[in-house]
C-alpha cells in the first residue's frame, strides 16, 4: 500500500527494557480445558489463568480436532470477555419505547441499572402482557449459535412450551439455510456427512463458496496438508482467489451466483463421458433418469458463457473429481447465501450422487458450519419447523411426545410452523410479531439491507436483549440481561463435524452477569407463574448436565451423550445409546430418506445483476481476524491487527477507474452506501468487489440485497449490484486508522 503509514502498534516495535536473567515466570492458578468460542471447527483450548486473567491459551496436541494448532482468534482473541464495554449489570431503558418510535440507546446514560429481580420481573410482565393480549403469533425469539446446546434448548422450550409459538429461529437461516433445505430434501439429513480431518485420506476435494484458511483456519491447515503431504488434488470453485487456490490443482473463477451452471456442466461431463458410478446411482438414489434429461442444455460451453469459467477447466474439474477414488466436497456461504441457495446446494449434492462420493470415509457432502454451535443450536430445535432432533412441529406424534416430556396439556403445543429469522422482522407490525427476545444475536449487523431492518426493529413493541455487549441490536431493546461469556459457564457445543464437546467455566462471572441457562430458568419460572398454567414444565435444573439428560430422552442423536463420556475428546452424533462410540461419517448403508433424490435444478440469475448505473457485483464474507457482527473481535486485541474495513478491488477495475491502492471510496447499492478504503488485489475477480461484514462503521449489509431464496428463506448476501466512486479522506469514519498487513 502506498499512502499513510502503518499506525503505531502498542509500544511501536521499540526495544523494551530487559530485566536481568531470572525473570519471574508466571505459574497459573489453574488451567482449564474448554472449546473455542469462535468458529465451527471446535478446537480444544487450554486456558491458563492467573488472578482471574486468562493470560495464555495453549491446546492439547493429542486432540483429534486440531492437534494442538489454533488460529489467531482462538489463541489470542478471548480478551473481549474483559472489555470495559462489556455490560455486567441488568439494564432497563429510562425512556419508555413505543412501537414505531423506538430508538437505539448506545450510551449507557440512556439505561438504568437495575437488580436481576427487577429486570426479570419486568421482562416476564411485558412478555406475558403481550402474549395474553395478542396471542402466540405475537411472540418471537432468536436463539443463538454461540450459546451452548443447553441454553438453546431452554430458550426454545420457553417459547414453545410457555408461549406456544414456533417463531423460533437463529442465524442458521442467514448462513446455511440453503444447504440445509437442499440436504433435507434430497437425503433428509442436514449435517456435515464426514469428519473434516478425513480430507487427508481423500484423492480429490472441492472447495466452493468457502474460504477455509480464514473462516475455518484449522480445517484449512488440514486441507493444505492433504495437498502438500498426502497428494490429494484440490479444486477451488470460487470468484475470489482465496489463499487455498495457491494450493489448488484447478481454480474455477466463476462469477458470483453462477454455481448452478458450473455444477450442472460438471455433471453433464460426468454423464457424457461415462464417469457415472452406476452401481451407486442404482442402489442408493432415485430420479436419475429424469435428472439426466435436464442436463442436456448445460454443456461446458453454455456454462462458460454464463459463469466466465473456461470450459476446459470445467471439463477437467469434472474428470478429476469423478475419477478420484475418494472425493470430498466442502462448501460454505458462497453456495447457500443466494436467492437460489437451495438449487446451488442441490447441484453439488448431485455431483456426489453421480460419482458415489458419499457414505464412505474421506468422501461426502460437507457444508462447513460457521458458528461454534450452529450445528448444536439447529439440533436443539432452534428453528421454526423443528423440535429438537429435527422432529417436525406439524407432526402430531412429535407434538404429543414433547407435550408429555414438557408436562404440557394434550394439544397444548402449537402444530403450525413458525416464522423464520428474516420473516420475524418483516412481520413486525401491529397484528404481527410484537415481542422479540434476542439471545446473543445481532440482526442490526447480520440482516441484509440494514436500513430496512432498522425500520422493522423500530416497529416492535418489546425487545429483550440477552448478551455480553449492548450491540447495534441490543441498543434497540427495552431490557438488557447481562449473560456470561463462554469462559464463565458450563455446557456443551456441537462443532461442524457433529462432535459434542464441553465448554467449562474457567473464571468467575464478571460483575453480576449470569449464565444464560440460569437466566432462562429464572425467567421461565416467572413467566409460568404469571400465565397460571395448571402444569409446570420443570424449570428447576441444577446443572446443564440435567438439561442435556432431558433432551436426550427424545432426541436420539444425543441419547448416548452424557457429560461423563465427553470429558476429553467429545463424541460425534448420532450417538444413539450410552455405549455407542459416535459416528465419524454418515450414510454408510443408506440415507435417512432411504434413497437419495435427484432433484433437477435450473439456472436462475442473481436477483440484481450489474447494469450501467451499478456496474459491479459486490460479494461479502469474513476475514481471519474478525467475527461476524464484531461484538467479540472488535472488542479485542484482534482489532489492533485489523482495525478498519477495506473493499477489495481487482487491479484491472482499479486501473480502469484510475483508483489507487488505499484510496477512500464510496461504495453504493440501491439500498445504501458506505465509505471505506480500497485495497487493490488480485484476490478479487475483475468486476467483483469484496467487503467483510464485521465493520459497523461501513456495514456491508447496508448494501446487500434482501431478496430471499423462495424455499430456504435465506437472503442473497453474496451478490448485489454496486457502484464505486472516489471519496475524500474526511468522509472516512476513521481516516487515521489503516489496515496494512503483509498477509495480503
Amino acid at each position, binding site marked *: 500500500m502506498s499512502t499513510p503509514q*502503518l499506525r*503505531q*502498534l*502498542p*509500544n511501536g*516495535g*521499540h*526495544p*523494551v527494557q*530487559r*530485566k536481568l*536473567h*531470572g*525473570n519471574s*515466570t*508466571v505459574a497459573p492458578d489453574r488451567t482449564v480445558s474448554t472449546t473455542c468460542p469462535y468458529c465451527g471447527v471446535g478446537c480444544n483450548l487450554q486456558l*491458563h489463568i*492467573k*488472578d*482471574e*486473567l486468562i*493470560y*495464555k*491459551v*495453549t*491446546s492439547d*496436541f493429542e486432540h483429534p480436532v486440531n*492437534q494442538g*494448532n*489454533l*488460529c*489467531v482468534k482462538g*489463541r*489470542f482473541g478471548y*480478551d473481549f470477555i*474483559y472489555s470495559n464495554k462489556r455490560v455486567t449489570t441488568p439494564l432497563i431503558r429510562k425512556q419508555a419505547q413505543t412501537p414505531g418510535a423506538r430508538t*437505539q440507546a448506545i450510551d449507557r446514560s440512556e439505561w438504568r441499572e437495575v437488580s436481576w429481580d427487577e429486570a426479570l420481573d419486568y421482562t416476564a410482565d411485558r412478555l406475558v402482557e403481550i402474549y395474553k393480549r395478542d396471542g402466540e403469533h405475537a411472540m418471537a425469539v432468536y436463539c443463538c449459535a454461540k450459546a451452548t446446546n443447553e441454553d438453546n434448548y431452554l430458550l426454545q422450550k420457553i417459547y414453545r412450551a410457555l408461549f406456544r409459538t414456533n417463531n423460533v429461529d437463529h442465524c442458521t437461516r442467514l448462513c446455511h439455510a440453503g444447504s440445509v433445505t437442499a440436504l433435507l430434501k434430497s437425503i433428509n439429513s442436514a449435517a456435515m456427512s464426514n469428519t473434516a480431518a478425513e480430507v487427508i485420506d481423500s484423492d480429490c476435494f472441492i472447495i466452493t463458496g468457502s474460504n477455509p484458511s480464514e473462516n475455518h*483456519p484449522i480445517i484449512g*491447515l488440514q486441507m*493444505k496438508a492433504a495437498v*502438500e503431504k498426502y497428494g490429494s488434488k484440490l479444486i477451488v470453485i470460487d470468484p475470489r482467489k482465496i489463499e487455498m487456490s495457491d*494450493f489448488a490443482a484447478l481454480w474455477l473463477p466463476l462469477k458470483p451466483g453462477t454455481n448452478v451452471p458450473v455444477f450442472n456442466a460438471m455433471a453433464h461431463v460426468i454423464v457424457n463421458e461415462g464417469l457415472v458410478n452406476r452401481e451407486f446411482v442404482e442402489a442408493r438414489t432415485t430420479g436419475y433418469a429424469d435428472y439426466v434429461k435436464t442436463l442436456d442444455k448445460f454443456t461446458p460451453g453454455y456454462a462458460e458463457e454464463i459463469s466466465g469459467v473456461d470450459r476446459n477447466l470445467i471439463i477437467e474439474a469434472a474428470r478429476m473429481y469423478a475419477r478420484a477414488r475418494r472425493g470430498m466436497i466442502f462448501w460454505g456461504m458462497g453456495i447457500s447465501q443466494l436467492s437460489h441457495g437451495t438449487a446451488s446446494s442441490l447441484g453439488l449434492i448431485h455431483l456426489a450422487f453421480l460419482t458415489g462420493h458419499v457414505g464412505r470415509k474421506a468422501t461426502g457432502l460437507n457444508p462447513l458450519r460457521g458458528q461454534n454451535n450452529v450445528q448444536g443450536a439447529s439440533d436443539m430445535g432452534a428453528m421454526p419447523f423443528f423440535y429438537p432432533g429435527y422432529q417436525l412441529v406439524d407432526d402430531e406424534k412429535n407434538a404429543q411426545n414433547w407435550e408429555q416430556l414438557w408436562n404440557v396439556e394434550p394439544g397444548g403445543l402449537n402444530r403450525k410452523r413458525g416464522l423464520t429469522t428474516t420473516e420475524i422482522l418483516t412481520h413486525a407490525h401491529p397484528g404481527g410479531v410484537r415481542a422479540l427476545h434476542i439471545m446473543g444475536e445481532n440482526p442490526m449487523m447480520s440482516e441484509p439491507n440494514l436500513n430496512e431492518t432498522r425500520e422493522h426493529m423500530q416497529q416492535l413493541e418489546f425487545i429483550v436483549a440477552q448478551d455480553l455487549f449492548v450491540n*447495534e441490536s441490543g*441498543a434497540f431493546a427495552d431490557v438488557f440481561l447481562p449473560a456470561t461469556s463462554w469462559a464463565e459457564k458450563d455446557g456443551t457445543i456441537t462443532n461442524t463435524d457433529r462432535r459434542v464437546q464441553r465448554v467449562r467455566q474457567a473464571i468467575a462471572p464478571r460483575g453480576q452477569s449470569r449464565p444464560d441457562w440460569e437466566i432462562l430458568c429464572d425467567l421461565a419460572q416467572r413467566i409460568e407463574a404469571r400465565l397460571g398454567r395448571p402444569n409446570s414444565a420443570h424449570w428447576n435444573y441444577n446443572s446443564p448436565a440435567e438439561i442435556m439428560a432431558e433432551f436426550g430422552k427424545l432426541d436420539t442423536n444425543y441419547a448416548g451423550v452424557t457429560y461423563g463420556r465427553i470429558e476429553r475428546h467429545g463424541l460425534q452424533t448420532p450417538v444413539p445409546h450410552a455405549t455407542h462410540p459416535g459416528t465419524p461419517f454418515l450414510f454408510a448403508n443408506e440415507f435417512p430418506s432411504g434413497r437419495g433424490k435427484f432433484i433437477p435444478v435450473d439456472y436462475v440469475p442473481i436477483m440484481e445483476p450489474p447494469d450501467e448505473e451499478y456496474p459491479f457485483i459486490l460479494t461479502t464474507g469474513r476475514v*481471519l*481476524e474478525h467475527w461476524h457482527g*464484531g461484538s467479540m473481535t472488535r472488542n479485542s*486485541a484482534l482489532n*489492533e*491487527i485489523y*482495525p478498519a474495513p477495506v473493499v477489495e478491488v481487482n487491479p484491472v477495475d482499479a486501473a480502469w477507474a484510475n483508483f489507487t491502492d488505499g484510496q477512500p471510496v464510496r461504495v453504493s447499492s440501491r439500498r445504501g452506501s458506505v465509505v471505506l478504503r480500497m485495497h487493490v488485489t488480485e484476490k478479487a475477480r475483475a468486476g467483483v468487489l469484496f467487503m467483510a461484514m464485521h465493520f*459497523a*462503521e461501513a456495514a456491508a449489509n447496508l448494501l446487500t440485497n434482501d431478496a430471499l431464496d423462495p424455499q430456504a428463506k435465506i437472503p442473497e448476501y453474496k451478490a448485489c449490484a454496486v457502484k464505486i466512486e472516489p471519496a475524500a479522506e474526511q468522509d472516512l*469514519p*476513521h481516516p487515521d*486508522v489503516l489496515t*496494512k*498487513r*503483509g*498477509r495480503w
Partner: protein
Amino acid sequence: MPDTVSLHIDGQPITVPAGTTLLNAASLAGTTVPTICYHQHCTANALCRLCVVEVEGARVLAPACVATVAEGMRVHTRNERVERSRRTILELLHSATDVSEAPEIQQQLDDYHADLERFDDCEHREPEIIDDNPMFIRDYSKCILCWRCVQVCAADAQFTYAINFSGRGFETSISTFFEQSLTESSCVFCGQCVGVCPTGALKPKREWLLEQGQAPAEVLAATRGPGKKQRDRK
C-alpha cells in the same frame, strides 16, 4: 525388506517395526532419551544433538530423533561418551542463551551435572526483545534455534512461511524476511510457534506483561493498544 528389526538397546533385546527411530525404539524399550529440539508434532531435524546415543561400530554418536533402527544394532543410550557429549551441549547452550525459562533444560543441566561456569567467558546472546504486535513478544536471547517455530510456520502446520533462519554462526537467529515486523510479514498470528517454543523465547504478550509485574487490568489495557477508536455507531 523385513517388516521388523531386532536390536539391543542398553543390552536389552527388542523387536520393533522397520523405520522406527532410535528415540521411539528406546521409548518402546522403556528408556527415555532426553531431547530439546525434538517435538512429537514437528519434523525432527537433529539440530540440538542432545538425543545422541552410541551405536556400536559407528564412528560418531547418532542422533536418536532421526537415526532409524537396523538389524542387530547395539545401542547405548547413556554411557560415558554419551553423557560427556550431552553435558557439553548443555553447557554450551547455557553459556550463550538464557535457558532459565526452559524447565526441561534446567532439569537436564541438573541430571548431567553440567558445570554452569565452564564456558563462563563466552559471549552471551542478548538481542533486544521484539515487541511489534499485540499478540506475542519475541525474546531471542532465550532462543536455542531448535527450529520448531520455523517448522510449524511452514509445512508442519501452518504453511505460512513467515519466519526462517537469518545470519550465520553465532549471529544466527530466527527472523522474518528482511527483519520486517510481523504485521508486515506474511504472519497470520496463529501462534503455532508460541505453542511449540520450549524456552519462553516466544511468549504471549499478556503473559510477558504479567511477568513484568503488571496487574491484570494494566495487561489488558496494554494489549488493547493506544488510540483505540470508539466504534462509530450511527
